[in-house]
Structure formats: structure tokens, C-alpha cells
């Protein structure tokens, strides 16, 4: 179980995330919603250790991880798919996937996982030797998701996986994600602009505004509350 307890994250003097508390149970999908600049990415970066928490702490699987460097957090089983398709542009698709499994020792299992990713995302199989930077935007998005899964995490942090994808591809990616979550028994913290889609996958959601949690509740309740949808989620 991942638990953020009153974390504060700052960029210099600017407080970007202000006492945010979030809980993600095992094998639960939780959505983190909010307008541009609300602080969603910042929350994920704090969990991954890319940004320090000015106060508050983050508990994961019985320990506190808020002081660990990013690579230790990956080792602890939390893997982030960063915003904006951060592929290793000059490296091949295959090398990108191998890097996803950087911490894993069992070569055999890694190889079979790569094959499994090729199964989930057949485009990647076709382009396995192509430089990742030359993939299309959607293909790159699939690659970063597959790459994160290669670390066989217990918890996946997804930052706007639908960004810039065609609606049809969004559906495709989300349905693959669903399948993977079931197969790999993953917990997911999902950041999304597209609240409707996110709520359809998640069971619980938090709405962030100007760095603070303003609403939280089950997806069903959120979908049912029309005024809330209008004012915060925009659909």
C-alpha cells in the first residue's frame, strides 16, 4: 500500500504541492485529476524521488520511502511512466525495454517479459531495432509504458498516458493497461486530463487544485455528482 501523508513539495519558494494525502491500496487503480498546473506531475515526481518532500512522508509496503533516491524507489517496486514520452531517443526499442529491466537479474524472465511486451504492443515488435526517437508519438507512449512494466513493478505511476494520442489509440492503450493490471496484479496511480476515461478505470479518485486535494471519493460517486463533474472535471 502506498500512502502519502501531508506531503509538501516546493520549487524554490513556490509551494507546488501543499499537504497532499493520498492512499493507493494493493491492486487498486486510483486516479489523480486536476487542471493544468494543479500539481499532479509534481506529486508523482515526489513519489519517485525526483523531487524532495519539504515535509510530510511517503510510506510504501511498511517502510518510508520519501528520503530515498529515485533508483532505490524503483528497486522498492514503484515505477513511473513520466509525462511526455521520455524515451531514450538514440537507443533502439529493444534497448529501451532492456533498460526497463535494468534492476532485474533473471535474464531468462527478462527475455520472456520482452516477448510479452511485444505481444501487448505488436508495433513495438515490428520496430524493435529502430531508434526510439524515430517512433511516432503514440508508439513512443506505448514504449514508455512497456518499458516501465519491464521492471515488473508492484505499483505503476502513470502520468497522462493519453496525452497527444488519437482517441482510438487512447481506448486501445487503456484496454491494454487494464489487461496488464489484471495479469500483473498491479496497483496504479493514474494522472489524467481525460477524467471520464480515468474514472472508468479507477475505483477511487482525488481532485487536485492549486496543489491541494479539494475532492476525493470513489469513481462511482464522482461520476454521479454532476455539479462536481462540471466544476472540476469538465465533462
Amino acid at each position, binding site marked *: 500500500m502506498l500512502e502519502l501523508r501531508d506531503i509538501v513539495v516546493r520549487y524554490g519558494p513556490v509551494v507546488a504541492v501543499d*499537504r497532499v494525502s493520498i492512499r493507493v*491500496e494493493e491492486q*487498486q487503480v486510483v486516479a489523480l485529476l486536476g487542471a493544468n498546473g494543479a500539481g499532479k506531475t509534481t506529486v508523482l515526481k515526489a513519489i519517485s524521488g525526483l523531487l524532495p518532500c519539504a515535509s510530510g512522508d511517503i510510506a510504501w509496503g511498511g517502510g518510508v520511502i520519501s528520503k530515498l533516491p529515485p533508483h532505490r524507489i524503483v528497486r522498492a517496486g514503484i515505477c513511473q511512466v513520466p509525462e511526455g514520452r521520455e524515451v531514450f531517443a538514440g537507443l533502439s526499442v529493444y534497448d529501451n525495454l532492456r533498460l526497463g529491466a535494468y534492476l532485474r537479474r533473471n535474464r531468462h524472465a527478462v527475455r520472456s517479459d520482452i516477448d510479452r511486451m511485444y505481444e501487448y504492443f505488436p508495433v513495438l515488435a515490428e520496430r524493435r531495432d529502430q531508434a526510439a526517437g524515430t517512433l511516432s508519438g503514440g508508439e513512443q507512449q506505448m514504449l514508455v509504458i512497456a518499458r516501465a512494466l519491464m521492471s515488473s513493478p508492484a505499483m505503476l505511476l502513470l502520468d497522462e498516458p493519453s496525452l497527444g494520442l488519437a482517441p482510438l489509440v487512447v481506448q486501445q492503450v487503456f484496454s491494454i493497461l487494464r489487461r496488464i493490471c489484471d495479469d500483473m496484479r498491479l496497483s496504479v496511480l493514474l494522472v489524467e486530463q481525460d477524467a471520464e476515461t480515468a474514472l472508468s478505470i479507477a475505483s477511487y479518485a482525488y481532485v487536485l487544485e492549486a496543489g491541494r486535494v479539494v*475532492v476525493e*471519493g470513489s469513481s462511482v*460517486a464522482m461520476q454521479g455528482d454532476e455539479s462536481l463533474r462540471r466544476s472540476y472535471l469538465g465533462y
Partner: protein
Amino acid sequence: MRSVLHGHPRLVGLVISALVTWLLNEVLFPTPLNGYLVVLFAYVGGVVVARLSRGDHRYAALGPLVPLVFLAQNSIGVTELTQILILAIAALGLDLITGWTGQLNLAQGIFIGLGAYVTAILASKHGWPILLTLPLAGLVAAAAGLLLGVLALRFDGVYLAVLTSAVALAGPVLLLHYKSITNGVNGIIVNQPQPPGAFADWLDTDQWGYYVTVVMAIIAVCISWNLLSGRIGRALRALRDSPIAAKGIGVDLTRYKVLAFAVGSFWAGLAGGLYAMTIGFVSADSFGLFYSIQFLTIIVVGGLSTISGAFVGAVVIYELSTNVQTIGFATTVNGVALSIPQAAVYAILLILVVIFAPKGIIGIFSDKSDWSRLTQRLRGGHNRSTDVVQAQADRPPIVRLDAPEDPHPAITSY
């Protein structure tokens, strides 16, 4: 001159500096007093007066130049002070190039060398009066600097570092090669000029050299000041802080970068001429990459983009490079005597300064945040200011939409 002396408080600060110096030097301490103390007192006096009269205290930094005029009789050695001022003049020039316009120049030493050779050749081989060669030394170096500055426009960052260090490495070799002009490894001996008739009774050669240098330093400071306090100064600051933004608001990058290189090299050449005049010997191996790095060290340790930084840095580096052996950095580790060589101390100082006090000595004293950052880093603490605590008060209520009994239902199917 107008903008330097504009406004009474600054003028008053300067006058007070002069008075304090005179008092300290002649009345209170007729015995030789440590010159740095005098300079410090004079500076503080100038600052206090400027502050009290609500003037800009930075202008009182000119104060230290005033006491210098009176220091030739006692205090620290005149020759020592002369060399410090020469270093400072060249450092001022380098600061214009590297500090103000952000162009890393590792060839300042070779421009000093150029100036030194101009003076030495004209004075020794052609019998020119030495004072007449000084502006020419500056101009020749400025011309070379102009050339390098135009070249430098095509490069930035690491390429400029490569280019200028190549100049610094290749320059001395070239100077040594053309023996017919430079006398090769034998170098050129320059006869130090005698003070002219009217001064001959009061001053010896060293003191005369010292006063010439002081005058040059004052001219250099005044011109730099005028250059940097007005419109050009603002443009240069914009350029340094964000080159691309400066371009956006219409600052002509090209002109200022080249100008900085030319003027900065002029000061180097002038300093070179003074060097030849006061040391009395010029040889190419003195002007290599190490020499250039020394000036970079001066401006970094003193404080980049500050005029006083060049002087403070020059004092520190000069003293360090001449006295380190006697200061006694020798220690024993496990009974083995270990003395750290001078250049190593110098290098470690440089590294420590950029890591811990990136604004240099001037920055430490003039900028509170820098000082607290330094002490904090030394203590290893984190910088947590109060706004987090303050924010606690106004936390908005969180709307919970759930039935309370089951806030986090585990998901088994979608």
C-alpha cells in the same frame, strides 16, 4: 567621470576615505601599519558615510583607491602593491569579458604578454619613453582582442573554452619561436624608468612605478564604472543573466560581446605594459595557460561581475601565491610530513569557492542569502523557510464523496 562623481554622498564617501587614510597613516600610526588595514578602514569609513547620507554605498568602494595614493611611504611594500594593482587591472579586463558578457576567456595571460612585449620592444630596442608605450601596449592587445572577440562570436560555451585555451597554449610557443623579435627564451630586459625631474627628489624608481600604476588603476576603474553603470551596464547584465531573453528585448549581443573583448584586452595589454615597466624583464613562458587561469581565479574568488571583486581577488591571490609556503599549510599525517604545494592550495581554494560561495568574497559579504547559504551548507542543514508553516492555517476542507464505511474498495474487476 560625470557619473562617478555625480551626487554628493559618493564624493563625501571618497573624501572621508581619503581623510581616514591620511589620519591613520600619518597621525595615528606614524609607524608602518599594515596597508590592508588602512584600506579596510578607509573603505568602511566611506561606506558608513555613504550609507548615512543615503547614497549608494557601492560607490564608496572607490575608497580603497584613495588610500593607495598615500601608501607608498610605509605600510606594505611598494613593489608588492604595484604587482597587486597590475593583476587587478588585468582582472578587471577579464571580468568584463568573462563576468559581464559570460565569454570564458582562458587567454587573458597572452594578452598581457602581448602588452608586455610591446612595451619592452619599443622601450628597449627603439628607445621610446616608457610612459608613451603604455597606451600602445593596450591598443595592440585590444586589436588582438578584437580579433579574438570576433572569432568568439561564432562559438559559445565549451568551444570558446577550447579556442581560448588553445590560444593560451600556442601563444607562448609562437612568441618563443620568433626570436628576432622577442629574443626567444632569453627574454627582454627593460630599464625601469626614473621619475621625471620634478619628482626625482621625492620618489625612487619603485615609487614612481607605483604611482604610475595607481593612476592607471584609477583610470581603469573609472572607465569601467562609467561603462557598467549606465545603459551598457544594464544591457550587459541582461545579456549575462539570460542571453536569449536579452536578444528578445533587442540588446545587440554582437556589439557588446566584441566590445567587451576589445576593452578587456586593452586592460590586459596596459597591465602587460606596466608589468614590463615594473618587473623589468619580459619572457614568453610567464604568459601561458597557468597565468591565464590565475586571472580567472582572481575574478572568481573576488566575485564575478564586480569591480571591487577584481581588487579583492588580486590581493588574495597575490598573497596566497607568494606567501602560502610561509603561511604553513604543512601538516603531518600518521607522522609523515605532508606539505601541500602552493598551486594545490590555490586550486583547492578555487574549487571550494565555486562550490560554496559562487559569488566570491564580495558575494559573501554583500549578499546575506549567500552568507547564510554558506553557513548552512557547512552545517549540512536544509533550507526550510517559514512559508510552509504559515500555509498550515488556511487549509481548505476536503470534500469527501464516499460512503464512510468503504473508502478504498479493493478492485477485483473493472
